[in-house]
């Protein structure tokens, strides 16, 4: 396994990103100071439970949701400072795949047009050229272009729609794709197909991925490194094998324990997880996990733990990391 | 909750202000000089100029609006130059008629619409449901002036059961008063119930598909409790809005019915004001009716919050 931890020039560098938005007269602290680096050619998995801010983070990276503070450097350029035309140009290099493949496709347009749309937006005027590229990318994701191009989305299953979405995101040859829970809405048998397809496409097109999901096993299957998020903050970042073998943050440990294992001989341990995540409207002081953490003490409520290196390449934000 | 009420109240202030401005503009900007209208045959340039000065019409528009608004805020909506009555007097005299008509109409409309809707939703797709939905649909296409003529023809002209036109105050002859009100109220109610029924029926049908109804059934609750407690309350939200809007609309919609049945209500006052170009009355009544509508809508919003705890707690 190649170690891709820290290289001088990461493709994506998220620096102390803060995203907040209003809900009624309250403020949701969705992302509170997250820093991440993704190296060229790497897949970074981002895990966390619902409401932890992982999707918001993904969208803030793409500037679909503007950050309150912090920077997002892509290939050395600051996306947060970009506006209008410059940002639109940059968007051709970074793409997004969503959780709900069916909702991601305009129900009133044909598949051929949907996949060709990025080409039109980027100003490719030659229709034959567009058609050639659409056909190529549809075949690449395992769909027969002649059968597919003239149909509308509702004639396809969820798995096939996700293939179409992947085709659309690939047609411009982007460098970086944010996959926001791309397989959560799919059945087990289809999920494996899509995960394999993503891996194949990554190799074929030389992609860098930010892979967001709530399922640890799914994340591990595709990621070189994994970041664990809880209530708007990063708990732990590290190479996937190492992180899952020896979690340092108690929350990572808890997540690992909670996964149901398809093996009757593994008696499910009586859950150690107590309580529920607090609301991102009023996050706890200090370490945000302290309200559910068995190791929490005075210091955890007073002092925000910083990410620090626990083992080579593995960082955890905890005052009392697991041994 | 108090916070919620205060915020909603604050939000309707600009609307009320805009309503007053629009009312004023309609009456001021449209062609037809008030002075000419008042003076009629005796309009000589000197007379007109003098009257314009008296009425303040020579002042700039914004000044006229502000001074009019100032008077309105003190409760002075002006005085008819035809009858000499103040707007408030004229409205106060006629509002009981319109209110009685509206309330009777809405009551009859709900009396028909709600039970029919519940019965239809409980047996969606049955022959009864199809028949009632069809009738409601047909009735929706029936303008109230058609219903009125039909009812007059049937009950007054042919059967001679009820009077076609006329009015006595309830306080003088209660029974006669009700006889005069049956046909007009029925006319309006026949236009109201299809809307009430359609809204409640489709909401109820949607609610009956909800998981929590399946859960209520699997808890072994009695069908009546499921229908009236579990399904009716969450389904009645749109109905409240519709009823509120209806009442607001009736504020102005009684106009045709009052004209046809010769009931001396707000509607007739308005039509009369239009026929006689009684600008002050027109302006004043339109303002009052529009403000009434805004306030009814505000009350509906509040009712909504009472019915739906999610809104009350700011979760919607």
């Amino acid at each position: 396994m190649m170690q891709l931890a820290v290289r001088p020039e990461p493709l994506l560098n998220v620096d102390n990103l803060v995203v907040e938005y209003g809900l009624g007269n309250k403020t949701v602290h969705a992302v509170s100071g997250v820093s991440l680096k993704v190296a060229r050619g790497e897949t970074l998995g981002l895990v966390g439970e619902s409401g932890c801010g992982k999707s918001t983070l993904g969208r803030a990276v793409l500037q679909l949701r503007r950050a309150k503070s912090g920077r997002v450097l892509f290939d050395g350029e600051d996306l947060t400072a970009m506006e209008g035309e410059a940002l639109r140009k940059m968007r051709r290099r970074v793409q997004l795949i969503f959780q709900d493949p069916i909702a991601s496709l305009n129900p009133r347009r044909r598949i051929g047009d949907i996949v060709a749309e990025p080409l039109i937006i980027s100003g490719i005027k030659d229709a034959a050229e567009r058609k050639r590229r659409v056909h190529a990318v549809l075949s690449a994701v395992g769909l027969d272009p002649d059968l597919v191009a003239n149909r509308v989305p509702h004639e396809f299953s969820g798995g096939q729609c996700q293939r179409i979405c992947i085709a659309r995101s690939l047609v411009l040859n982007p460098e970086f794709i944010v996959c926001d829970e791309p397989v959560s809405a799919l059945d087990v048998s289809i999920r494996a197909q899509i995960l394999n397809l993503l891996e194949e496409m990554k190799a074929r097109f030389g992609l860098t991925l930010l892979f967001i999901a709530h399922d640890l096993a799914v994340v591990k299957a595709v990621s070189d490194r994994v970041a664990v998020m809880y209530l708007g903050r990063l708990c732990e970042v590290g190479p996937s094998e190492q992180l899952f073998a020896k979690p340092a943050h108690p929350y990572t440990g808890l997540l690992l324990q909670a996964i149901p294992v398809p093996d009757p001989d593994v008696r499910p341990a009586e859950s150690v997880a107590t309580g529920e995540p607090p609301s991102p409207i009023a996050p706890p002081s200090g370490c945000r996990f302290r309200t559910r953490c068995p190791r929490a003490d005075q210091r955890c409520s007073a002092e925000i733990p910083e990410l620090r290196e626990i083992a080579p390449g593995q960082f955890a934000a905890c005052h009392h990391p697991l041994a | 909750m108090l916070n919620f009420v205060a915020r909603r109240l604050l939000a309707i202030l600009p609307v009320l202000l805009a309503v007053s401005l629009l009312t004023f503009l309609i009456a001021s900007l449209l062609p037809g000089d008030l002075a000419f209208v008042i003076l009629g045959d005796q309009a000589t340039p000197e007379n007109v100029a003098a009257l314009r000065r008296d009425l303040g019409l020579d002042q700039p528009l914004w000044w006229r609006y502000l001074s009019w608004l100032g008077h309105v805020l003190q409760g002075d909506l002006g005085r008819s130059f035809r009858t000499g009555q103040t707007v408030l007097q004229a409205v106060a005299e006629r509002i009981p008629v319109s209110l009685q008509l509206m309330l009777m109409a809405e009551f009859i409309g709900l009396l028909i619409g709600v039970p029919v809707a519940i019965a239809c939703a409980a047996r969606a797709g049955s022959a009864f449901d199809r028949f009632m939905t069809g009738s409601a649909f047909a009735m929706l296409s029936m303008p109230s002036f058609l219903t009125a003529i039909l009812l007059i023809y049937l009950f007054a002209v042919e059967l001679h059961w009820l009077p076609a036109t006329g009015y006595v105050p309830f306080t003088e002859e209660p029974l006669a008063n009700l006889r005069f009100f049956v046909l007009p109220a029925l006319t309006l109610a026949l236009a109201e119930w299809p809307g009430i029924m359609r809204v409640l029926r489709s909401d109820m049908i949607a609610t009956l598909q909800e998981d929590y109804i399946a859960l209520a059934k699997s808890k072994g609750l009695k069908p009546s409790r499921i229908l009236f407690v579990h399904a009716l309350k969450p389904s009645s939200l749109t109905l409240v809005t519709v009823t509120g809007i209806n009442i607001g609309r009736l504020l102005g919609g009684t106009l045709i019915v009052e004209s046809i049945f010769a009931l001396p209500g707000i509607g007739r006052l308005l039509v009369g004001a239009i026929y006689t170009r009684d600008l002050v009355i027109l302006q004043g009544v339109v303002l009052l009716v529009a403000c009434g509508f805004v306030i009814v809508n505000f009350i509906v919003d509040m009712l909504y919050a009472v019915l739906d705890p999610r809104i009350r707690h700011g979760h919607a």
Partner: protein
Amino acid sequence: MATLELSIQDEAASAPVRGGRRLGFLFWLASGWLAIILALAILAPVLPLQNPVDMDMLERRAAFSSEHWLGTDGLGRDELARLIFGARVSLTVGLIAPMIGLVLGGALGLLAGYFRGRFETLVVGSMDVLLAFPPLIFALAVTAYLGQSIPNLTLILGVLGIPAFMRVARAATLTLARREFVIAAEALGASHARILLRELLPNVILPLLAFFLLGVAVTIVVEGALSFLGLGVPPPMASWGSMIGEGRESLDVAPRLAFLPAAALFVTVLAFNLVGDTLRALTDPRQGAL
């Protein structure tokens, strides 16, 4: 280990789901009636009809005859000619006025639903103000001052329709704008104009068109009501509403004078409602699910 499914032949077999949507007999009946009325209204000047405003005081309230198929009215004018020329007025106002609402209200709703923020507040607020005026009173007041004419009437009724169209367009846009395909277009770097025209408009236009037909029905009713009160079309022009209004005076002696135009109005409004409602149900996303 094979992971790709290159063939989707089995999908080709499980062909379209659309065929099952039947419009029904009533829909076609209503459409047929509308086609006939529309044709008669358009062709009225070239049809061998009598002049609808020619009075014949000797033949007042004449019964059905070969000369006057549907008799004459209280002023001895040919009832059939007046009915058909009345259809012209009702349909002209009924079709043109909602177009004003459709275009202006639709555009405002689309923009408000997409851009949100202050613009939306302003649009919704001004529509609330417009809605606060009971439409009939508003129309009455304005016609009273602008003067009675068909263009004026059309304009007022059109303006009155804007809030309703705005609401339909805005509601549709609000739900659509949150859908992933719009965010996907944004992520692709599509301009606002492109998102509005290519992604949102095709999805918003269908519910709007269905609502347009319902709008036609409502406008015909309101025009009828105004003319009924004598405040719509200027006499001696015929409109169904004014004919009903005039016929009301002779309910006891010649009820048909009120009931013939009433029936025409009712059936036409019903037909518009039926066609509009059927189309609305078809474009309703909730129904499209299964």
